């Protein structure tokens, strides 16, 4: 930070560069907080880690039953073809919602820590997202197994889901910075987050294929704006390329949204940094 032995102004906020360096220095704390979070969560469950697999399986089963078997939202795609599409979408969308919520609550649940210990507060939303990221591996695994049963042939190109999921996680990290700042300013935000995600859920083609369902071009463009539509398509594509095709604009939109969310999130979050935890 400064030369050893020299006094420095601790009441002055860090420059962006020093802040990022400070975050990096606290990377072990980010991991430890996420680990503590997961430990706490499983204290009272008998099944523990099994829930990571049960959650996406149960959720996929419910949506498959209601939307595919009863309502037939898989228009143009076979039931079996649609099942892996659904499994991956549902699992990852749930990660997005839970991680944003964890980020939103992170400054509030760690209030005592914030009052007592100085560290870059960005540690908290990041570790909230990281704890939820633990669920992504199992969700993708469930999706891949379902895909194999549906007749897809596994290959090394399936590994591309990992960078695609990372891109989604980065987007969510930015979003959780925004949510954390907003939730700290007003408790109403915590109530609002599920509604925003519910809307995005229905508008992102998680439970139906946008290409097969939306006919009008301008309506499809509207879906394109939804970051989840592009980001989830990118994750699905390596495993179910036919059911979930991607286009050039979708790739640009996915990266664009990620950049916007990270920059905006960091900027907004840092502006409130000095006042977090105050009465």
């Amino acid at each position, binding site marked *: 930070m400064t030369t050893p*032995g*020299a*006094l*420095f*102004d*601790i*009441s*002055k906020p860090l420059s962006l560069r020093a802040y990022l360096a400070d975050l990096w220095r606290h990377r*072990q*704390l980010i991991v*430890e*907080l996420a680990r*503590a979070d997961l*430990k*706490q969560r499983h*204290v009272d469950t008998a099944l523990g880690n099994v829930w990571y697999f049960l959650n996406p399986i149960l959720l996929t089963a419910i949506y498959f039953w209601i939307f595919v078997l009863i309502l037939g939202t898989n228009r143009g795609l076979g039931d079996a073809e649609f099942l892996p599409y659904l499994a991956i979408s549902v699992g990852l969308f749930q990660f997005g919602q839970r991680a944003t919520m964890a980020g939103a609550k992170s400054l509030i649940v*760690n209030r*005592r*820590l914030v*009052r*007592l*210990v*100085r*560290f870059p507060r960005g540690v908290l939303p990041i570790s909230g997202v990281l704890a939820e990221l633990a669920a992504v591996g199992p969700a993708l695994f469930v999706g891949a197994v379902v895909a194999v049963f549906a007749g897809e042939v596994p290959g090394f190109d399936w590994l591309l889901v990992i960078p695609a999921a990372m891109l989604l996680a980065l987007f969510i990290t930015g979003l959780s910075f925004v949510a954390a700042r907003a939730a700290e*300013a*007003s408790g*109403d935000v915590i109530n609002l987050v599920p509604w925003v995600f519910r809307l995005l859920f229905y508008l992102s083609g998680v439970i139906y294929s946008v290409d097969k369902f939306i006919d009008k071009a301008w309506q499809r463009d509207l879906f394109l704006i939804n970051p989840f539509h592009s980001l989830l398509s990118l994750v699905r594509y390596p495993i179910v390329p036919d059911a979930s095709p991607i286009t050039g604009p979708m790739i640009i939109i996915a990266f664009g949204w990620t950049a916007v969310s990270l920059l905006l999130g960091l900027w907004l979050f840092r502006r409130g940094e*000095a*006042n977090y*935890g*105050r*009465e």
Partner: protein
Amino acid sequence: MDASSGARGAPLGPITLQANGVHVLYHPERRRAFRAESQTAKAVHAVKGVSLEVHEGEVLGIIGANGSGKSSLLMALAGLLPIEQGQVMALAYPALLGVRPAIRQQLSGTDNIILGCMALGLSRKEAVELVPGIVKFAGVASHVDLPLRTWSSGMKARLVFAISTSVEPKILLVDEVLAVGDAEFRKRSVRRLRQMSRSSSTVIMVSHKMQQIQKVCTRVIWLDHGEIRAEGRPKRVVQMYKRYASNLADEMDS
């Protein structure tokens, strides 16, 4: 004032913490901007232009009545409260030891120790190495694997004290925690704080226990309505404060 040497006669080390005209204001209306009733809330001026210098090896005590701004000053010195005006310069970010610790009730003693040490800036490896010593000092060996919700409040307080003092912060700020634990633990806590000041740390403590202040501190500041009223040898400042407090009590009774 004895600025050139510590109260115990030892020469002072280099400056580790320096406050220049620090003002702390609370703006209740800023925090709850959406609520109508807060429009009338006024800012509270908790610390009014405090300047001080603390050296290596010093144990500085801060005394004063409730609401005199002691805790706000301590938070500001820790870099935890934004200051309205002025500046806090330090050799390192100070560690704050407070009465309401940041512990996790669902986690075991060991997990809390590791997390606590890492929050204070240690690596995971360093934190793990400190676990046995902290458990021993806090005297909580029998409970270390149990979640903290099953611990007594005295045990938790001892654990937190042991964590904050074991990471060997360059500057330690202590807020009213020497009252925790039984007589034996209090004695050991005092000894540990003295030890820390000898091993080139700086300790600043806020306390209402005048006996303890006199026992541990090398210098004392009396804070009154956010301003420094007196500063100097512990015995002298504590006496001045006591005299003032008893006069005030007499006035209020009559």
